[in-house]
């Protein structure tokens, strides 16, 4: 659905996106993670033909965005953080204005979408009287009007309260379930991405440092929590035996191929009293923070 191939974007001397290659398959909820300034919005801008790439190729719905933008975006809806509207006009008129940039849209279709997002009864009120949540619904309505196959959400949870974030998450899942949309979700709300996306890519300083499934991230081994009667001596022994690679005050990192059972057995045999030992599941947050603190080196660099 979205294909970025060796995409580069420079703003003057600043490299905003560096050799980014990315694939978002049809029917998937794909998360784009990264700090502010990591290059997420620039990447999305290039997908929507708002930002011109300095190099590489961007394909959306099978069409090259640079040369066939209209065809590429015909079935795309987008929502940005703090969606902007013509506040002095009604919600309905805003929808009419925005949807007519895509294609003529019937009043029945607008009504259908207004009902779907739960704005019925308020659609003829001026947007300046809308709450933040209502503006978010209006943003969703304008994105759904052209009957999209792909929905691009750039920081949609920005500025929402916990209830709004919960509602947004449920809406994303509902969109995927009921309308079978492919969704690209750019966010730095890690828990939201963890709960909604199947696959993720992490951007750091303009380059992709990870792409894979959320399940893969979570199944990756995290720290093993260990409690013994003499923690320092136990860690020393495990190091001497080559069973661990790292240790902190509360946990240890086993050497590849070494299980918690094997470690426990060694400690018992050595006379330690083991109060607890268990494998901690890695959260997306642990994974992300570790990744951005220690990003993989650039290809071709030592």
């Amino acid at each position: 659905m979205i294909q970025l191939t060796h995409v580069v974007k420079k703003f003057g001397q600043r490299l905003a996106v560096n050799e980014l290659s990315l694939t978002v398959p049809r029917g998937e909820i794909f998360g784009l993670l990264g700090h502010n300034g990591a290059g997420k919005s620039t990447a999305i801008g290039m997908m929507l033909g708002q930002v011109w790439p300095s190099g590489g190729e961007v394909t959306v719905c099978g069409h090259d965005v640079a040369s066939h933008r209209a065809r590429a975006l015909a079935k795309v809806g987008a929502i940005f953080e703090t969606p902007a509207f013509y506040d002095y006009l009604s919600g309905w008129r805003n929808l009419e204005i925005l949807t007519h940039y895509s294609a003529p849209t019937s009043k029945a279709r607008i009504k259908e979408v207004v009902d779907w997002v739960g704005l019925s009864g308020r659609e003829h009120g001026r947007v300046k009287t809308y709450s933040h949540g209502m503006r978010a619904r209006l943003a969703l309505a304008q994105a759904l009007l052209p009957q999209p196959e792909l929905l691009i959400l750039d920081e949609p949870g920005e500025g929402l309260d916990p209830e709004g974030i919960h509602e947004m998450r449920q809406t994303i899942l509902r969109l995927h379930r009921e309308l079978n949309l492919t969704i690209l979700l750019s966010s730095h709300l890690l828990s939201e991405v963890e709960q909604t996306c199947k696959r993720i890519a992490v951007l750091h300083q303009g380059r992709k440092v990870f792409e894979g499934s959320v399940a893969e991230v979570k199944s990756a081994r995290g720290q093993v929590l260990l409690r013994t009667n003499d923690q320092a001596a136990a860690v020393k022994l495990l190091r001497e035996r080559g069973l661990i690679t790292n240790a902190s005050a509360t946990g240890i990192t086993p050497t590849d191929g070494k299980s918690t059972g094997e470690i426990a057995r060694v400690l018992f045999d050595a006379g330690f009293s083991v109060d607890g030992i268990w494998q901690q599941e890695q959260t997306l947050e642990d994974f992300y923070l570790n990744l951005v603190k220690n990003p993989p080196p650039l290809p071709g660099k030592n």
Partner: protein
Amino acid sequence: MFYLQLRNELWKLFGKKRTYIGFGAFLVVQVLISLLFKLTKASRPMQRLLEGNGYLPEDYISALTIATVMLIPIAGLLLPLYVALIGGDLVAKEAEDGTLRMILARPISRVRLLTTKWLAGVVFSFCLVAALAVFGLVFARLTFPWGGMFVWMPEHGIFSVFNASAGLAHYLAANLMLTSEAVSLMGLAFMFSCFNIKPAAATILALSISFVDYIMFHIPFFSDYQAWFLTYHLQVWQWMFQEDFNWARIMESMSMLAGFNLTFLFVGCTVFQVRDIKS
């Protein structure tokens, strides 16, 4: 589809309060000028000029003459300011507010979007000048009788007297030509609006350029090059008050203004096409 998009642009333009606040300022000026001529001795020099040339002032100091006098400050000051504000807002304000990013997430080409916006600006300019022509005449008629029209524009060597019907025709023709000034200055501000600058900066740039252009074309050194100055051609409406239209002069200015406007639109489109639109 194009009609729908143009209609939407007009909704945006006419839906803003600011549009009407600016328009209100015009009406106030028209009323003030009308009252100034009625309640003070402002019309005395006009009377003397008419009498000196063998005309009866009471036949020619009329609603049409006062409505024509109103055109001078409006065309020279208020109209440029107002249309430059509108033109400067058309793109830059949307970029500033973030709505441009919402629009450009849609499959509309940038050139088409700009063409639609520019056309909306042209429609607005026509409506504005038409409304000013009608209101000017109405306010003048409330304080002055209907009658012949007298126009004196010494810098163009125009001294014309018309009966009421011919005067009305010349007044309407002048207003029609005044739309070319409104459209051109709107187009100049619109061009700057396509750059990555604030709306106010686009307006100020357009006004500054037209002001510098006006000063330069009045400098004797440039008298041989007058035909290359924008403001020289923006005065074409004044030539509609000649008793016999100078069609060569009018067509020259209209052709040059068409060229200026196409250039403004082309530059605007080119700059906008290569721009990155970011939040």
